[in-house]
Structure formats: structure tokens, C-alpha cells
């Protein structure tokens, strides 16, 4: 079973790959071209150099643009770097032309925008500001505070975490989309874990699959990994979200002294934390613990004014539908009432709209299903009597944070037809008459419990034994098959016996001979040698006639000539001739025959028939 399952999975995976390839590859070629300029830092000390990247995304064959003179800098072209990447199943190619900028003097400068023509289109970059300072560059205080101490010096510009939300105030239960972005610039990062953060007073969803793209932030190009989720506040007040924390490993390449040849297979080669490359490099993993700043929130309570009675805490913008099925039932049969709520908002906090059926229905707790952008409540209603004609209306209300007002949607009532119970079940009984009212119908509350035990033990069987695994039972299944085959063989043989007379005679020959031999044996002890020899002669005639499909009456010793033509062993024919001669002699001189001779003839007859039986007819 498992084997077939695996095979199925492989086939499925193979077709999925083919399908994805066919769907996504053509679309990737139609990618839009983007042109961006970026630098590796915004502050640089005089005497140091910085890197300027001119990147074309969506095209890998654009020649290097000639740079104009840049004020305050000298530049040198280092070369191109092409890149092909597959992110979220879309293929993208890019080319980056790398230049080195060497500051010539201190001050604040602006790298102007560059313009490139490609296939009739013009692409322009944004200008970038750079500050050239004398001596060592230190990071501004503000920037340092937003970045978390990860224990490795000089990484603040290279990797950091940002927590983003679109709003700073929200209502209780209002969905707030939250984004955590990890910016990485020219670092090798592995084992990135999902972010964690303090969220006291908030409820948080699980993070969805992270996105990966490139973004220019403050003039520097970063690889960005974006994590998205939704949060909502559970109580009003001034709350704080974050700081977000994220764990990952930084892989650093270090040149190390090559050990002796024997140490190549040492255990540390396979060390999980550090492993050695073939060219004398050593890669080391450094755990990083990144953090972001926290975000203050003002969470407002929902307004008490104009709050509908049916309001149950739902917040967002929804649509509400009500369906009942079936609409015609018998008393006691269930009706499924389906309430569907779709739209945008916090589905987690949506409760089933209340249903006021008075005593008309018995209402069971709903079955709740969460679907994509919706929630379904399925109630089972059981009408208590045939007078029920409708399912009452149901109201669902919610607070719309955009228009800042409550909205109420009412559906129903739904007309239903309830017939009296089919099984004649009495749902109403005549109760005790009240004073002065005569006989009054009173609704009966039906109880429910298990039905009483059984008095008879029933048919006992061995525990765990099933008939289909019982060996004698399985053997019996072959009987019909055996009978059918036997009948088929029998029918075929019967048909042949009817159609093929020589075959039928040949088949009958030994049986008849056996019968005649028995008669001859009986006559052996009698005092009538004539009868004995007549029987022997008749036996030979009938046997040879049947065996070789000859007319029985005409068979005499002359038949030996005919048999010689059939290539029968001469010895057998000699014995047959001898037997015929004995018979002839006995006819003409019966008095001279002794009992001993009769016995010899009988033995001879048996031998002849026996030897003829050995011949295939």
C-alpha cells in the first residue's frame, strides 16, 4: 500500500514540476526592467573608498553605462556581476556594474541620477547623498539605538531588523497587519528563524511564508526577507508591541593554515559549527540575535453608543448569508441552518449570531468551520411540533473601523413546512386538565437516553476470526471452479465420442475385451472347449475390429496382412497368428484339445490384447 502511495506521490511531484515549469517560466521572461543605483555606505572617511552599484533587474545583457564626472569623487569601473535567481517560483536575471568611488575632499555630496537608454526606453536612478568625513566614521546614535547588539562589531549597516505597522491606533479586536523585515547587505546568513516578539495584550496569528526581494534603503541595496502576520489587541489602553527578535547564523569565511594531509579527515572536518573548504578557507557560524525597536499603540474601546443588541464583538466589514435545508420536514427531523459570514476582518472573534427560536425548535450547538475569508456556523434545528412555519430572522452586527460605525445585517425569516411525525410518534399529550379549562394540550419534553440492554446473547463467534480468512472456507471456493472444468472436459469428450466413431470404438475396445476375457475365463473350467474357442475368436474379432476400426464380422487370421501394413511389431503379429491357429484347430478337431492347451490359449489371448494395448492407435 505504502509503495503505491509513494509511486503516486512521485508521479504527482513530477507532474507538478512540469506544470509549474510550463506556467511560470514563460511569465518570468516578461519581467519589467528596473534600474537602481546603490552604495555600500552613506558616510565614508577621506582616504577610504566606497562601492557604487548600478543594477539592472530583469535584464542580464545591458552594457556598462559611462559615468559622468561626480563632484568630490574619482571613480573606477571594477566589472559586471550577473545574477540569476528564482524567488517564489519566478525567475529573474540581473546585472550589476560595480564602480569604486574614491572621495577627494570632505563635505556632503550628491551622486547625481544616471540615465540609460535600452531598447527605446529610458531608465533613471535616484540621486544619493554621501557624507565624506575626516578620520574614522562612527555610526550615528539614532541608527545604533534602532539596531540590536548582536555581539559582532561593524555589522550594524550590514544586517538589521525592522518592525513595521501601518497604524498606531486601533480598536479592540481590529486586525492590524504587521511586517517584520530583515535587511541583509552582502552577508552570508543561514538558519533564519521566524521572528518572536513581546505582545502583551495582543493576539497574534502565525507568520505566513516569508517573501524575499531586494530593496534600496537609505541609498544602500539590501536583500530583504519579509515576514507578515496579523495581530489584534484584546483590551483597550496604551499597549506596546515588540521589540521583535530574530535568530540566525552568520557564516564567515576565514583563511586558515592548512593542516597536514593526515588531519584532512580529522573529526573537526565534520564539525557542525565550523567546517573547512578544500581551498584552505574555514567557514564559521556565528549566532546572531537581532532585535528591533518596539511600537507603542493606542487601543480604543468600541463605542457604547448605537451598539446593536445583536452585537457580539465582530469587527471588520462583512457580508452575512442565511440558508436552511431541507425546508420541508417531519416533526423531530433535523433542519440544518447555515450562517455564512464573509468579508474582511478578525474572524477569530466572530461568534455565532444568536438564534431566538423560542420553544419552536430544539437547537444544537453549531458546527463551526473557518473557510478562506469566511466563517460558517451550522446549527441543527429540530422542530418540536407541526405548527412551526418559519425559522425566525437572524441578525448579525459588526463594527466597521473604517466608517467607525456599527452595521447590522438581518436575514430571514425562512419559511419551512413541518409535517406531523411520520412514525406516529406522539409529541403532544393530553395533560392534566386545569381548572375550568377542560382538556388542554401540553407540550411534552422528550427525554433522551440509551435503549435498555438485550436479554438474548445472540450468535456467538470466535473473537477476531473472520469467515473470509478461514482456510476451509477458502478451499471450498475452488469447488465450483473444479466442477466447471470437469463438466467442460466431460462435454468435450462426449462430443468427440459422438462425432469420431473410430475414436469411440478404440476407446471402447479394452473394456469390451475385458468383459469377453472374463467370459472366456469362466468357460475355461467348463467342459465345452468349442464354446471357449468361439469366445476367444469373438474376443479377437471384436477387439481388433474396434481397435483398428475394421468390420468385426470379416476378421480372420487374414487380418494379420492388413496389420503388417500398419507397421505393428512382428512379434505381436506372430502371437496373434498363433492364437488364430489354435482357434481354427480347435474347431476342426475339438476332441484333441486338452485343458492345458486351453489355458495356454487363454494366456496367449491375454498377452496379445495386452501388447496391442501398448501400441498407440
Amino acid at each position: 500500500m505504502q509503495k503505491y502511495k509513494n509511486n503516486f506521490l512521485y508521479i504527482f511531484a513530477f507532474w507538478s514540476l512540469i506544470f509549474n515549469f510550463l506556467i511560470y517560466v514563460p511569465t518570468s521572461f516578461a519581467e519589467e526592467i528596473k534600474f537602481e543605483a546603490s552604495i555600500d555606505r552613506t558616510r565614508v572617511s577621506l582616504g577610504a573608498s566606497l562601492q557604487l552599484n548600478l543594477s539592472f533587474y530583469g535584464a542580464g545583457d545591458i552594457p556598462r553605462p559611462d559615468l559622468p564626472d561626480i563632484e568630490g569623487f574619482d571613480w573606477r569601473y571594477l566589472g559586471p556581476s550577473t545574477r540569476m535567481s528564482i524567488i517564489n517560483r519566478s525567475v529573474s536575471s540581473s546585472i550589476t556594474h560595480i564602480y569604486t568611488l574614491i572621495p577627494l575632499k570632505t563635505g556632503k555630496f550628491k551622486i547625481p541620477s544616471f540615465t540609460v537608454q535600452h531598447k527605446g526606453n529610458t531608465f533613471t536612478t535616484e540621486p544619493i547623498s554621501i557624507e565624506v568625513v575626516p578620520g574614522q566614521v562612527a555610526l550615528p546614535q539614532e541608527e545604533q539605538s534602532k539596531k540590536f547588539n548582536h555581539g559582532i562589531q561593524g555589522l550594524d549597516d550590514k544586517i538589521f531588523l525592522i518592525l513595521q505597522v501601518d497604524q498606531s491606533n486601533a480598536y479592540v479586536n481590529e486586525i492590524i497587519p504587521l511586517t517584520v523585515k530583515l535587511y541583509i547587505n552582502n552577508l552570508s546568513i543561514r538558519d533564519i528563524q521566524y521572528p518572536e516578539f513581546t505582545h502583551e495584550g495582543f493576539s497574534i496569528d502565525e507568520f505566513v511564508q516569508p517573501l524575499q526581494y531586494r530593496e534600496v534603503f537609505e541609498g544602500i541595496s539590501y536583500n530583504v526577507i519579509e515576514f507578515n502576520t496579523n495581530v489584534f489587541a484584546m483590551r483597550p489602553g496604551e499597549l506596546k508591541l515588540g521589540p521583535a527578535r530574530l535568530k540566525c547564523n552568520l557564516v564567515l569565511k576565514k583563511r586558515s593554515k592548512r593542516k597536514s594531509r593526515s588531519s584532512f579527515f580529522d573529526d573537526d572536518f565534520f564539525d557542525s559549527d565550523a567546517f573547512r573548504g578544500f581551498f584552505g578557507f574555514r567557514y564559521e557560524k556565528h549566532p546572531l540575535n537581532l532585535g528591533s525597536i518596539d511600537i507603542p499603540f493606542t487601543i480604543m474601546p468600541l463605542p457604547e453608543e448605537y451598539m446593536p443588541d445583536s452585537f457580539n464583538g465582530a469587527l471588520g466589514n462583512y457580508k452575512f448569508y442565511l440558508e436552511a435545508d431541507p425546508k420541508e420536514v417531519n416533526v423531530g427531523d433535523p433542519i440544518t441552518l447555515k450562517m455564512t459570514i464573509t468579508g474582511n476582518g478578525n474572524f477569530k472573534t466572530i461568534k455565532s449570531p444568536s438564534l431566538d427560536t423560542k420553544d419552536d425548535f430544539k437547537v444544537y450547538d453549531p458546527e463551526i468551520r473557518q473557510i478562506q475569508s469566511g466563517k460558517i456556523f451550522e446549527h441543527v434545528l429540530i422542530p418540536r411540533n407541526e405548527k412551526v412555519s418559519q425559522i425566525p430572522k437572524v441578525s448579525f452586527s459588526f463594527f466597521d473601523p473604517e466608517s467607525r460605525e456599527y452595521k447590522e445585517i438581518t436575514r430571514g425569516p425562512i419559511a419551512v413546512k413541518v409535517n406531523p411525525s411520520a412514525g406516529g410518534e406522539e409529541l403532544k399529550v393530553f395533560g392534566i386538565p386545569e381548572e375550568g379549562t377542560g382538556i388542554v394540550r401540553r407540550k411534552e419534553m422528550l427525554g433522551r437516553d440509551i435503549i435498555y440492554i438485550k436479554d438474548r446473547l445472540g450468535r456467538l463467534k470466535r473473537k477476531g476470526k473472520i469467515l473470509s480468512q478461514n482456510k476451509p472456507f477458502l478451499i471450498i471456493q475452488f469447488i465450483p471452479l473444479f466442477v466447471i472444468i470437469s463438466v467442460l472436459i466431460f462435454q468435450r469428450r462426449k462430443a468427440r465420442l459422438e462425432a469420431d466413431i473410430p475414436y469411440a470404438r478404440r476407446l471402447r475396445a479394452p473394456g469390451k475385451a475385458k468383459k469377453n476375457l472374463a467370459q472366456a475365463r469362466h468357460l475355461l473350467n467348463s467342459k465345452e472347449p468349442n464354446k471357449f474357442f468361439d469366445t476367444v475368436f469373438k474376443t479377437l474379432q471384436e477387439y481388433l475390429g474396434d481397435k483398428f476400426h475394421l468390420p468385426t464380422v470379416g476378421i480372420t487370421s487374414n487380418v494379420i496382412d492388413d496389420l503388417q501394413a500398419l507397421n505393428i511389431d512382428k512379434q505381436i503379429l506372430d502371437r496373434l497368428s498363433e492364437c488364430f491357429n489354435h482357434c481354427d484347430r480347435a474347431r476342426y478337431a475339438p476332441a484333441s484339445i486338452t485343458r492345458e492347451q486351453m489355458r495356454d490359449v487363454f494366456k496367449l489371448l491375454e498377452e496379445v490384447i495386452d501388447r496391442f494395448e501398448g501400441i498407440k492407435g
Partner: protein
Amino acid sequence: MKPKLAILFLIFIFIYPKLADGDDLSQVRSLFYQGNTHYREEKFEQAITDYESALSLGLESGPLYYNLGNAYFKYSALGKAILSYLRAQRLMPGDADLKSNLEYAQSLIEGRILVVSGKGFMRAYFILCRSFSLDKITWLSMILYFILSSLIIFAIVRKKAKKILTYISMITLALLIICISIFFVQFYRIVIQKEAIVIAEVSDSKFEPLDHATTFFCLNEGESVFVITTKKDWTKVRRIDGKQGWVKKSDIEPL
């Protein structure tokens, strides 16, 4: 003489196991009636002991499991009650009392997941499948198989009646195919698919077979699960909604 001997032999091998159970049979009977007496006296714990003792002798019957289910139900062991009812259902699927008690017991499971097996024709087909016990459908299939074989033999021998015999054979063959398909569905459900019932009040289903592992979902007493694999004291199970996790082996009992 030989065919007579063969028939006698076959009768013997079918009846022999039943003869061998003679002693056990009377013991099971007396325990069953003793259990019924305890049940009537509302001594449910003793009734359970009697019924379980009867079952421990290696014999089973639908009413025995049914009464055991009732005793467990009254003893407030919902999981064991449902387990016994389901075992009874395999032996007497058409019993209306059993159906009612099982439905009622299952309606008391907290947070129960309702399963609708298929729609339209498939739903009707699965209902039909469930109305046959495995042995019953095996017998029915065998009878139809013998009838079909006899018809084939008649058709071979009596060539004049071949046409009418062919029509009857086709109908019998269609019925036989339906019976065999029901047999396979029931065989898969009862023999291959390892169903189990949660007998603990609440059972935490974890991501790993470890005590301190994170709980993935909770199973309530009486819920039905399918056993995937077992590892020491832990069993990996699949809930009806497809979620899988590790539960303590003692929290569930296979059907």
C-alpha cells in the same frame, strides 16, 4: 464412498471449532445473564466485570458488546461505551437499538467533528456497505458465486436454455460484483484500517512521542482516530480531519 467422506470431512471441519467451544459457551452464557442481573440491579461496575470476563473467553456476540456498551455508558465511561457499541456494530450492523445508542453516545463527545462520507450516490453506497457485517457479506458473495457457477454449468450442459441462463447469469454476476465491492470496502474498514477510540477523558496529541513535546491538538473521550504507527508507549494517530499527532498508547483502544 469417497465423495461422502469428503462431505463429512468438510462438515466436521466447519462444526469442530463450535464443538470445541462447548464449555466456553455455557460459561459465556452464564456470565452474560449474570451481567444482565447486575445491570438490572444498577450494579454497573459488576456488570462490566461480568461482560468483560465473558469476552475474555475468546467468544463474542453483538448483544454482548451492546450490553457492555450500556454498562459503560451508565458507568460514565463514554469512550469505552462508544468502543463497545462500535464493536457490536461490526457484528449486528442493522440493529436499530444499537444505532440509537451509538448516535446518542457520540452526540455527547465534546467538540465532535461531524463526518459526512461522500455525497449523493457515494453516500448511499457507503450507507449500504455499513449495513452488512463482514461475515454476512462474505456469505452472500459465496452464495451468489455458487449460484453463478451452477448457472454456468447448466448453460454448458443444457445448450437449449443457454439464452435465458445467460441473462440470469449476467444479473447474478452484477449482484456478485456489488457484493464483492461491499466486501472489500468492509474488509478495508474493519481489517486494514486500524480504527481506535479515545478512552481517556482528554488526550493531548503531541508533535513528538515525548512527554514534554508541544501539544498539537486535543482529543476528547469517545473520539475516533486511525492508528498510523506505534512506538513504545506512544501511538501516532490521524484524526478524522486529517491532523496527525502522537498520543499515549493507554489513552486509546483499538476497535
